[in-house]
């Protein structure tokens, strides 16, 4: 019984850990793109603002 539990735990442990890394890797990729996009649109906005001010 203990042996069965061990093998099951091992399977769940490996699956769970890899799934977690996969999900957070996805977050990393999405977040990097999202932050880059939001800061770029931010700086575009501020440059437009500057243009208007100088006009």
């Amino acid at each position, binding site marked *: 019984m203990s042996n069965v539990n061990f093998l099951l735990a091992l399977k769940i442990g490996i699956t*769970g*850990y890899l799934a977690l890394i996969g999900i957070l890797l*996805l977050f*990393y990729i999405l*977040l990097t793109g*999202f*932050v880059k996009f939001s800061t770029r649109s931010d700086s575009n906005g501020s440059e437009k603002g500057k243009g208007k001010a100088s006009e």
Partner: protein
Amino acid sequence: MQELLNGIFALSIGNVVMIGVGAFLIYIAISKEYEPALLIPIGFSTILVNIPFSSAIDQWMGGVLHRGVLSIFFDIGIITEIFPLLIFIAVGAMIDFGPLLEHPIMFLFGAAAQFGIFATMVVATLLGFDIKQAASIGIIGSADGPTSIYVAGRFAKDLLGPISVAAYSYMSLVPIIQPPVIKALTTREERRIKMAPKSLKVNKTARIIFPILVTIIASLIAPSAAALIGFLMFGNLLRECGVLNSISKTAQTELANIITILLGLSIGSTMTADKFLQPRTLYILLLGVVAFVFDTAGGVLFAKFLNLFLRNKINPMLGAAGISAFPMSARVIHQLGRKEDPTNYLLMYAVGANVAGQIGSVLAGGILIALVGNL
């Protein structure tokens, strides 16, 4: 007269030992400041429930059940999972995800440093625990009290006392547990790796969208984590939206304080002598340390693995900050970095990894519930 002495005559050695355990928890909470907000209510409740015939917990008298207030707290707060979820609103309102948004790569350490959860679960089965108990013990490695209570409350209610005590105690012991593991796995040169400060400033819109986006994506991938991640991120949205400042403040203070008291008292109600004074309690306390050691090792080794592919190397100590013990772990890593090189400033990166660990631990809890729940 006999009725007034019943309690004294019924006092067993187990009761006396547990009253001592309760007093010890109160002592370390006050003198060492180990998570006093939780350990004082748990300690006091432990004393209260180990008084024979205590009216604070359910008692059968003459074939009639007399309900005790602590048992009622336990039923309405822990069994229904309401208390840990409400605590998550408070935690979310307290967390600033800015450092993580500025350093997104830290997200990876929030996953890597959950290694202890899964490794400890495997070790626990070798000590004779069944798979659900093992998952509940492994979750101590989330270094996250509410997640530990949430998972253990679902899978192993009878182990809730020792698991909660281990989770909260070891979170306080992070400054003692982590440094030797980090030093054993890194060279001095690695610990001296400097991390360049970033000038990237995350705007308000990104901060508002982040909790909503994380909730949607995480819940779609792991629906069993929806309540956990949702309440955490809801609290963060209260903080970041900018139009609910008084509610955000209430969540961070009054809500957190009230639920913490109720949570502590409820958990203490499970610490009766017959449940706590067993060899398995010692195993659980031991496995708690194992979980924190594995977490730290997992984070550090993952950072070293990443460094094999990166041109700009990451200080591997940051991997250890991926556990969810916030902000304790970030502070420990920052101080270790300054010790090796006083000009090295790791704090913002470490905080980024630390708050990523908060998300990682909650997701790990959801993944465990999904994988183990149907067995």
